[in-house]
């Protein structure tokens, strides 16, 4: 446990309310709580670009002129439709883990003869276990977080693929024809004309997706990561003086109220940021938003 920050915290029983709270909110377990907010931000920071990459690949595949690739892309997009995302989360976390272990098992223990699935067990050789049984605690936590990031990226990648696919189709066809008339190849048209223009069409969808991603972060809790929901439940529960120097009643309601406010703040900040981004992207575009900006600057 981390030593208390304030010197007067040595005997919490005699403190007044303000000092009691300043000690309570800076004790060891609360630092884990604050650290878990960083986990959420880290998840967002890693997942957003990776999911965007998945989405871009998915959208490119769906646009492909090679049918099997196009089916793959469209199937990836469509499969998320109609099924609750939380079911995907719960599924992928186990499925990915088993897929990794199975692959390692095949490579590392080729002479293993027993079946991997025995009744209700999934058995791989010791060397194929992820993480290895001997590895330290932080490895287990990192692996869990890593699985969560991939799961989030797969699910949100499909959402992003759908949005980007729509954005690519929304670019006026005349633009592409003009590019062709200038003698650009299909690849050049795609990278030099289509991709720079599609973002403004895709941005409303992508910003919606960003909001949904923010609001999906508490689902980390279901994936077994010690995130803010986990700590809010832990810390908020009734504490008796037997186990802690800071006994209190059931405060889980207040902890979750705090989380609620945290998320509302995140939403508000994102809304403002995305509005700014939209203005930037609309600059010089042949859309009503771009037209509005042009009038503003020339007037």
């Amino acid at each position, binding site marked *: 446990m981390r030593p208390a920050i304030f010197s007067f915290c040595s005997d919490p029983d005699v403190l007044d309310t303000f000092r009691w709270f300043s000690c309570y909110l800076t004790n060891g377990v609360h630092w884990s709580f604050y650290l878990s907010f960083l986990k959420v931000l880290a998840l967002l920071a890693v997942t957003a670009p990776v999911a965007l990459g998945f989405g871009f690949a998915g959208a490119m595949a769906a646009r492909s002129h090679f049918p099997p690739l196009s089916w793959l892309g469209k199937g990836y*997009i469509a499969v*998320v*439709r*109609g*099924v*609750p*995302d*939380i*079911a995907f989360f*719960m*599924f992928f976390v*186990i*499925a990915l883990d*088993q897929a990794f272990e199975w692959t390692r098992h095949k490579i590392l223990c080729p002479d293993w003869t027993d079946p991997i*699935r025995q*009744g*209700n*067990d*999934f058995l791989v050789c010791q060397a194929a276990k992820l993480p290895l049984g001997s590895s330290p605690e932080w490895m287990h936590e990192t692996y869990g977080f890593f699985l969560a990031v991939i799961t989030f990226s797969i699910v949100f990648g*499909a*959402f992003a693929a*759908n*949005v980007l696919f729509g954005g690519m189709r929304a670019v006026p066809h005349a633009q592409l024809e003009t590019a062709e008339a200038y003698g650009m190849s299909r690849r050049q048209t795609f990278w030099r004309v289509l991709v720079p223009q599609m973002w403004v069409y895709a941005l409303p*969808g992508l910003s*919606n*997706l960003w909001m*949904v991603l*923010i*609001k*999906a*972060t*508490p*689902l980390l*809790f*279901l994936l077994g990561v010690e995130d803010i*929901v986990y700590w*809010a*439940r832990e810390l*908020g529960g009734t504490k008796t003086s037997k186990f802690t120097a800071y006994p209190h009643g*059931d405060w*889980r*309601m207040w902890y*979750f*109220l705090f*989380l*609620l406010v945290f*998320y*509302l703040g995140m*939403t*508000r900040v994102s809304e403002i940021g995305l509005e700014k981004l939209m203005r930037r992207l609309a600059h010089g575009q042949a859309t009503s938003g771009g037209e509005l900006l042009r009038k503003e600057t020339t007037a």
Partner: protein
Amino acid sequence: MSCLQTIQDYGLRSIGLGERLLPKSDFTLCEQFTLIGSGMIWNVYFGIMALATGFFLATALAVGKASSNIWLRKPSEWFIFIFRGSPLFIQFFFAYFLFLSLKKPYPMFDGFTSAWLGALIVLFFNTAAYSGEIFYGALRSIPKGDIEAADAYGMSGWSRFRRVVWPTTLRLAWPAYTNEAIFLFHATTLVFFSAFPAWQQRGDALYYASYFADKTFNPFVPYPILAFYFILLTLVVIGGFGLVNKRLNRHLPAAKKAKMQFRLNLAR
């Protein structure tokens, strides 16, 4: 045990009828199908009840948000912002612990800590906020000519709202509202994974699916079954809402009656 017997035993397990003990090992495909299907009763219950009640609050919120009266507008805006701006998962947790602490001094809150009422209220507020925003958007995009025509006929106030504004709002909002309904049904799977307890293991479809996945350590059977049920449910919702859409658009000439475009945002 035959499959028919399993259906008799577990078909209504999620609402407490039939066999009391869940199967513990050697799960058959039939058992998994039956129990997960039985859990769907809860998802359908939550979805339909929240939609049916949320619709009216959503209309009120949309009208409130579009109102020029600040005392109507601000509360509606805040309500919509709070429920759309925070995760449903956290809302469930907060509501559960709120009801739990209200229960001690006021015993009338007893029922609110169980899922059938407590979670339903959260879903009701949540879908009202999302649909309210959709209706508000539609309300703002009613063609000016429609309102002018109503004015020319001497309509005002309630009769103008009921005969012109409201039907047009619904007509414009319906595709997006269909989308919201689909995602509301998906959101119902969160109920038993937040704080609300599944009393006597009476849970929803995802609750049973994860029960099987935990017991067999094999996610490749129960989750696809769950997916199957939800795709079915989604198709039913699209079908049902499509019928309503047809009725809402029945006065339009055939050429204008464009097929309902499901611009599924995939996420709300």
